[in-house]
Each structure stands twice: as C-alpha cells, then as structure tokens.
C-alpha cells in the first residue's frame, strides 16, 4: 500500500499535463467512491443519491471561494463539515425507513437538491452553475497547493488521510457494530445496540467525506454545476464501488480509476462507453459481487483463508 502511494506520488514528475489532470480527478472520485463504501460495503445501506453529498460539497466550497476571501485550504474543509452537518438531518429522515425505501429516500433527497440548485439561481447560478472558482492561496500566503502538481499533492494527501481514517473506523468498536448491522440488524438490535443512531452516524460521515471530495472538485475544475447533483453521477459512483469491490475501501478507489480510464479511453472509440460500463456493472453484480479488489485479494489469500459465508437475509 505504501509503495502504491509512493508510486502515485511520483506522478507529477513523470506524467504529461493532461494525464496529471486525469489522475487528480481519479483521486477525487476515489475519495467520493470510498465514502460511499462506508455505507454500502460496511453497513449495507444502499444509497442511490450520493451525488447529493458531492454536489453540495462542490457548491459549498465554490460559493465560499467566490464570495468570501477564505483561502482554499479553509474553504474546502469548511464545505465538507457543512455537508456532514446537513447530512445528519438527511440521515435522520432516510433511516426512518429500511431497505429499498431507504434507497428511494436518498434518491429523492438528491433529486430535491438537484431541483433546488436549478431554481435557486442567486446562490447556485441555476443551470449555469458557479464558474471561475479560484484556488485562493493562504492562510499566511501558503500557495504550495495552487499549481497543478501542488493541487495534485493536496488531493493525494487528503485521500490518504481519509483512507487511514476510514480504515481505523472500520476496525474500531463502532465499525464492529456497523458490520453487525450489515449482517443481521435484528440481532444487533437484540444485543442492545441502538442501530438507528449508528446508521445516522455512518451516513453523516459518508456524506461528509463525499462532500469533501466535492469540495475539492470545485477548485480543481474551477466550476460547480447541476451535473454534480444528477442521479447519473449517483449511479456511476455506486458502480465504482461495486466493480471496485465493496467493503474494502481500496476497491472503490480502484473502481473510480477504472471508471475514468474507461470513460476517457473508450469515449474516443465509441459513444456507447456508458452502456459498456453499465453492462459490466450488471455482470459484476451477478457473477463477481466482491469486485475487482475482492477477486484480487481472495487470489492472494488462497492458502486456506476463511471462505465467504453467505449472509442471511434477516
């Protein structure tokens, strides 16, 4: 893992400019996908509206950078915190339901946010969105992260930090309860855990991290628009998680990379790359639900590792 990070860190030194942009975007999307994995992979909360976190974070940091003098290094985390905070309310509402109703509520909320972004032109710029979002240096004139490679390193550091946090989280007592909820919520309740509160917490965290990704996207691309809230993106990130390998944190990051590579390479040859992607997704759900990373790791531990037992539907 450390070697992989080191290799990636060398990217600005060896890659041409346009590939650098691609890798940076892959890292941002990777953070986005990883945040969703906390919900899908570890707690089995299927969200079809995660773009809400991404878009909200992007608009928040974009707005802060356009309308205040806050430096980028402060606007981004602030936007992420705001997203997480708002998400507590959303989580409270959505966790009122379970199963497919939960999924529908998350989708409905994302649609709601999408509609609001369209209509609230004064704040969000309506269908045009926010443009010209600057990467403001500071505080204290710190401008190391403003340049293309500087920003790349910022994203890399944030991603690695978030990954470390998430790994610690899933290995913590809190994480153990999440797994209990995933495998048998009724039993977890009977053990005395107030599972609703845990679900609200993990959803808020997931949205917060998703918002962090979005908050990085705004200064990265220089704009924020309603595409970032569209259900298509919500779907694409679910696909990234599944194809990459849910419940592994690293898998979804790979899934995001896979998605971008496919998008950029295939779109040169065919209009139908999204179709190919969707079909791949369906194939993975049916035949390889553990995803790329899951397949890879089981191959590595083939020496008698415990085989996956099928979870019972409670």
């Amino acid at each position, binding site marked *: 893992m450390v070697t992989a990070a080191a290799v990636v860190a060398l990217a600005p030194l060896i890659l041409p400019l346009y590939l650098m942009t691609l890798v940076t975007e892959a890292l941002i999307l990777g953070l986005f996908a990883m945040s969703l994995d906390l919900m899908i992979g570890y707690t089995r909360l299927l969200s079809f509206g995660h773009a809400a976190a991404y878009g909200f974070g992007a608009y928040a940091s974009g707005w802060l950078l356009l309308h205040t003098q806050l430096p980028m290094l402060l606007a981004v985390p602030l936007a992420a915190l705001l997203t997480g905070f708002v998400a507590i309310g959303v989580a409270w509402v959505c966790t009122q339901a379970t199963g497919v109703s939960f999924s529908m509520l998350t989708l409905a909320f994302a649609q709601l946010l999408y509609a609001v972004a369209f209509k609230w032109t004064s704040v969000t710029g309506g269908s045009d969105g926010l443009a010209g979002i600057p990467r403001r240096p500071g505080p204290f004139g710190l401008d190391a992260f403003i340049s293309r490679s500087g920003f790349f390193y910022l994203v890399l550091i944030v991603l690695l930090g978030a990954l470390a946090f998430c790994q*610690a989280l899933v290995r913590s*007592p809190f994480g153990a309860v999440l*797994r209990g909820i995933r495998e*048998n919520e009724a039993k977890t309740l009977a*053990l*005395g*855990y107030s599972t609703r509160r845990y679900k609200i917490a993990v959803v808020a965290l997931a949205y917060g991290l998703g918002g962090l990704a979005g908050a990085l996207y705004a200064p990265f691309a220089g704009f924020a628009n309603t595409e970032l809230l569209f259900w298509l993106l919500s779907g694409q990130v679910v696909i990234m998680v599944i194809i990459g390998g849910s419940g592994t944190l690293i898998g979804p990051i790979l899934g995001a990379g896979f998605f971008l590579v496919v998008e950029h390479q295939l779109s040169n040859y065919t209009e139908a790359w999204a179709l190919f992607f969707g079909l791949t997704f369906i194939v993975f759900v049916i035949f390889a639900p553990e995803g790329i990373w899951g397949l890879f790791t089981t191959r590595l531990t083939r020496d008698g590792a*415990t085989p*996956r037992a099928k979870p019972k539907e409670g």
Partner: protein
Amino acid sequence: MALLEIDELTRRFGGIVAVDRVTMRVAEGEVRAVIGPNGAGKSTLFNLITGVIKPNQGIVRFAGKRLTGLPTPRICQHGIARTFQLTALFPEMTARENARLAAQAGEHRRWLFVGGSTLFADAGRRADTALERLGLAPIANRPAGLLSHGDQRLLEVAMALAQNPRLLLLDEPTQGLSVEETARAVETLSGLLAEGGMTVLLVEHDMEVVFSLANKITVLHRGAVIADGTPQAIKNDAEVQRAYLGGFA
C-alpha cells in the same frame, strides 16, 4: 418484588389471540420453563418481552421498571439477553467476533470511532470465556455461517452469556441438536445456573431438558396460562396432560 413481572399481556393477530392475558412472576435466580403445544404463543411471548412486537394490552416490568413500549435495544440494555428460535448470528464474522460483539454491547465505549484496542481486549476475554464454557473454543476462528447447526445454536447461547445478562431468554436452545449436543448443552447450562446470579426464561419442547433445568414451569395453551408451578405439580396436572394429548412421563 419479582425480577420479571408480566401482567395481563395480550397480543392479537387479526382474529387470533396469540397471547391471552398472560400473567407471570419470575423471581430472581429462578429458572422458569415455558412449555406448551406448537402455536401456544411462546415465541410471541418472547417477542413481546423484548419489544420486537408491541402488546395490545398488558405490561412487562423488569426490576420494577416498565419495559413495554420501549424500543428493543433499550429493553435489552436493561440486562436482558435472548436467543432466537431461528438461529440469528453474524454469518461472515468468526464465532469469536460474534461473541465479542455481544460482549461489547455492555460497554459505553462502543461508540469509539478509532482505536478501541482495550475495549476489544476486554470484550474478547469475555467472549473467549463464554465460548469455552460452551465447548466452542476449537471453532472460535471459523465464520459463524459455516458452523454446524448444533454449534450455531450453542454459539447463540454463548453470545447471550457474553452479554452478562440479569435475565436470559432462551428460545428452544436445543432445537435441532443431536442427542450428544443436547446433553452437552444441558450439562453446560446446569453448571452455569448452579453458579447462580442468572434468571432464565426457557422455552423448550424437549421435556427432559425442561425437567433437568427448570425449577418452575409455566404451561401455555392457545396463548393463555393453564398451569403454573413446580415440575412435580405440572407433571401431575390433568389439564396439562389433556393439552398435550397423551401427556408425558
């Protein structure tokens, strides 16, 4: 004051009265068996006590505190652990992890987002003890979903024990167990109960198990209590024998 007080507990499903004005008093330290023909309402009773379903009438009190109306986790936090008639485990976690999650439930620190190594160590110890008591130490590292049916049922009991409960609700713990496994389970449970400190409510079909473990028996028939007393008294009760169609030795 009894540890568990159930008063006029009633639950209807459409036209069927599953639990019919059940009144019971379980004293602390008692091992109370609840028996009755199939459909007598025994599992529903457990679900009512633990808040999985709400009663139409009646109250359940535990150590003087009213349980009825509380959500399930809050009820169980009072010190009540239960096993399920249909084995309920965490299939992809190892047996040890299952028991550890049960032991962890008693801790407030279970909200820790990071770290938690001391918490895991403590809970792990209690888990290991519980597993050993039930002879499950050899399979502690196997995923629960891959255990034999018998081991799974014993694991559920181990999990309940790991919670260190004041009241233990066992729902047909020996169901599906072989003769040898049943004997092992009964032996273990007798040993535990002999140490005292735990009150048990036991739903069982196997009469030998009931007579080995229980010091009081309540008989349900069509949701209502038809007899309540010592094992000897129940054995001789005519109405009970009628309900069971042919009685039992």
